[in-house]
């Protein structure tokens, strides 16, 4: 069964190819079901592989399946090969699993869109790329997937490309990601230079010097920052919400954005060799991002923007974990986050769908009655992310905070504040959307560009079954997801045990209980605060503009790009036209100008010519008689 690992990405690829050729014939909704089926089949294969792997001893669980030599030249031997090990299969499981659900959801969500089949074309391609990323046995195959998901992300963000903002957001995502890709490529160069191979098996098992390992780790981290939306490269993710909501859920919450975390875990042995400061840098950036994004989320009014910043914040958590050496904790959180954040996004999507593409929370409220299932599942997601036990989020977040405390109490404190804010802004969101009074009547005029296909019924409504089913499944997972790694005993830490052969596992000796209690309290405080503000209106809401503007960072970057950056570009373009090309044209002009001047000597008058000859004679005589003869 392990040898069939190639089927996992192959099925979505097949789906992609089929839809490419037949997509229009299949149409809405068959294309969607077909795509869902392909990813679902991929999930089944993954489960098969997973079971097969489970049946093996820990040592035998790593398996490389080479398809063919991809780039064999000189000392560079790169195979198109898959590495099936607990880490990759874990990733595959939730990528395909959640992927299937979101595909299904999308069939409902995208119903009626004029480019329905194209959406699933991209979605399948994305699934394929993501699986390549996860399964790659060397950095380059991972990079193939890495870029593939980036490209799909671009396609999908800009899916409604008629909208200027969507097109811009897509481009921004791709270009920003490319900055990170530069780091990834540099990491590969270093790795190849140091060990002559890009295979994880070789890199992770080589005796690297500390500086090299640090370089590889940090360059990988730059790549991860791009893909996983960390400071300072997170900019693209909030904008990416321009894409259809299933895309936000699948790509920009559950799977693609976690690729950075995955990569860091994948090379965790290298990180271990790297200098201490590498870990510190990662942890600090992670913590900073977490806190920063959480503050921003507090003041957002767009239902998806809140979730987007929340995602950034949660990813920050994961990097905090990575930086603290808690790779399993990072992965654990990644999985639970995938559950609840996908749930939240899909729930938000369901709301948006029900609200006819209204995204402003200020125009929502009291939806729980009209969209009961959506409301309930969303609330479960809220509890999970807010860190309320026993929901999934609590366990994983707690795990991270524990290791962060090991690293430094300050990091832990930052994490705690973030947790508080998270609870606060999520509660705010739930209240604004599902409780309070209905405010949607105020806004009939705001019709989404793509809402036209819906009926003229302006009343919000519950979503169809294919959208609701995934919500329910994910809600269930958000409740019980924590079970995969309960910190009660070594045995209950199933995820850790499972991943142990693949990544570095670290034990913490800090007492877990007090920290957990603090975390719970903090979470509850956050919820309570929000209730006071938004439900009871006891306290006036604090939503300063600067937070809504994300501390002005985005604008600063835009201003820089539009200002000095653009000027620099203009300057170079000018220099190209006027200096580089100017020199060429200048040379031409010089010749022409000289000729124009010299031709004036050609007066047509014999006497002038005679004078010229005379002058020539004198010059020649000077040379011959004076220089050569007399001197």
């Amino acid at each position, binding site marked *: 069964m392990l040898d069939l690992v190639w089927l996992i990405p192959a099925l979505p690829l097949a789906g992609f190819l089929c839809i490419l050729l037949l997509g229009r014939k299949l149409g809405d909704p068959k294309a969607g079901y077909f795509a869902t089926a392909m990813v679902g089949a991929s999930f089944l294969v993954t489960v098969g592989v997973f079971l097969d792997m489970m049946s093996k001893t820990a040592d035998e669980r790593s398996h490389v399946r080479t398809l063919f030599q991809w780039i064999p030249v000189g000392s560079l031997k790169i195979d198109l090969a898959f590495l099936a090990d607990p880490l990759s299969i874990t990733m595959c499981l939730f990528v395909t699993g959640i992927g299937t659900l979101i595909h299904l959801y999308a069939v409902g969500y995208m119903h009626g869109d004029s480019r329905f089949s194209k959406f699933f074309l991209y979605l399948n391609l994305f699934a394929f790329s993501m699986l390549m990323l996860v399964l790659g046995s060397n950095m380059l195959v991972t990079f193939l997937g890495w870029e593939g998901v980036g490209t799909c992300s671009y396609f999908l963000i800009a899916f409604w490309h008629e909208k200027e903002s969507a097109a811009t957001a897509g481009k921004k995502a791709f270009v920003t990601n490319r900055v990170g890709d530069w780091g990834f490529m540099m990491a590969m160069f270093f790795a190849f230079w140091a060990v002559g191979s890009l295979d994880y098996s070789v890199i992770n098992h080589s005796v690297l010097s500390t500086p090299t390992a640090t370089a590889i780790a940090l360059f990988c981290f730059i790549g991860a920052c791009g893909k996983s939306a960390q400071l300072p490269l997170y900019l693209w993710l909030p904008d990416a919400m321009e894409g259809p909501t299933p895309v936000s859920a699948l790509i920009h919450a559950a799977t693609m954005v976690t690729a950075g975390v995955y990569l860091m875990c994948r090379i965790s042995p290298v990180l271990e060799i790297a200098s201490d400061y590498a870990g510190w840098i990662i942890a600090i950036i992670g913590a900073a991002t977490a806190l920063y994004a959480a503050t921003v989320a507090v003041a957002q009014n767009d239902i998806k923007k809140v979730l987007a910043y929340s995602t950034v914040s949660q990813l920050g958590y994961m990097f905090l974990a990575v930086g603290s050496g808690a790779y399993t904790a990072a992965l654990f959180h990644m999985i639970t986050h995938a559950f609840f954040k996908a749930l939240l996004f899909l729930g938000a999507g369901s709301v948006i769908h029900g609200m006819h593409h209204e995204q402003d929370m200020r125009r929502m409220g009291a939806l729980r009655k009209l969209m009961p299932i959506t409301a309930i599942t969303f609330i479960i997601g809220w509890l999970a992310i807010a860190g309320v036990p026993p929901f999934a989020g609590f366990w994983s977040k707690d795990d991270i905070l524990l290791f962060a405390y090991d690293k430094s109490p300050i990091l832990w404190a930052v994490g705690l504040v973030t947790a508080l804010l998270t609870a606060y802004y999520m509660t705010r969101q739930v209240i604004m959307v599902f409780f309070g009074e209905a405010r949607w009547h105020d806004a009939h005029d705001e019709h989404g560009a793509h809402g036209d296909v819906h009926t003229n019924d302006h009343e919000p409504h519950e979503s169809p079954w294919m959208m609701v089913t995934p919500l329910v499944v994910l809600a269930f997972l958000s409740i019980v997801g924590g079970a995969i790694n309960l910190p009660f005993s070594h045995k209950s830490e199933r995820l850790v045990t499972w991943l142990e052969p693949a990544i570095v596992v670290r034990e913490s000796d800090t007492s877990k209980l007090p920290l957990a209690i603090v975390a719970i309290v903090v979470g509850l405080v956050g919820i309570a605060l929000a209730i006071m503000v938004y439900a009871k209106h006891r306290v006036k809401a604090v939503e300063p503009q600067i937070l809504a503007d994300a501390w002005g960072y985005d604008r600063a970057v835009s201003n820089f790009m539009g200002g000095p950056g653009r000027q620099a570009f203009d300057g170079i373009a000018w220099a190209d036209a006027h200096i580089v090309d100017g020199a060429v044209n200048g040379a031409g002009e010089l010749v022409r100008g000289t000729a124009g001047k010299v031709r004036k000597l050609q007066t047509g008058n014999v006497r002038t010519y005679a004078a010229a000859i005379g002058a020539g004679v004198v010059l020649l005589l000077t040379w011959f*008689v004076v220089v050569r003869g007399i001197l």
Partner: protein
Amino acid sequence: MELFVFVVAAAMVLAGAVGVVVRKHPVHAALSLVMTLFGIAVLFIAQDAHFLAAVQVIVYAGAIVVLFLFVIMLLGVDNAEDMHIEPFRVQRPVAAVIGTALVTMIGLAIIVSRKAAVPVVTQSQAVQDAALDPHDGNIRALARDVFSDHVLAFELTSVLLVIAVVATVMLARKPKPGELLIIETPSSAK
């Protein structure tokens, strides 16, 4: 004596030459030229080139200058040139500089190398013998030389004269009336 002859003749030569250059009227210039030519003929004699002196007078002064005068009269182009006008302001200073430089350079070369070893010339016996003839040694020697060593050159001068004949035929042929149209570029002709 020789000095006296030289000085007088040289004065004639130079005066005539300057006259050619500065006299407004072409006829005067031609007459100045005659003076120069005579002066040179005198200098030829002073240097034992009797035959050449004779030819100089006959051909140059007699034929060439007459030809000049003839053309001047024939075409009636004997109007004076206004020497006060010079359309190209730099022309005269430049000419003066070049002229001075030229004479300086060559003069310098002449003076510097005046002590140079004179190469030994071995002439054919016939020429040497002819030169010894007291009466017309120069002419004989010249004839010997021209018709032996330089016979080809001599023949070539005939070609030159043929060309001169053809040239006159061609150039002097009067264009038929109406043929003298200056052919304009088609755009303007249209």
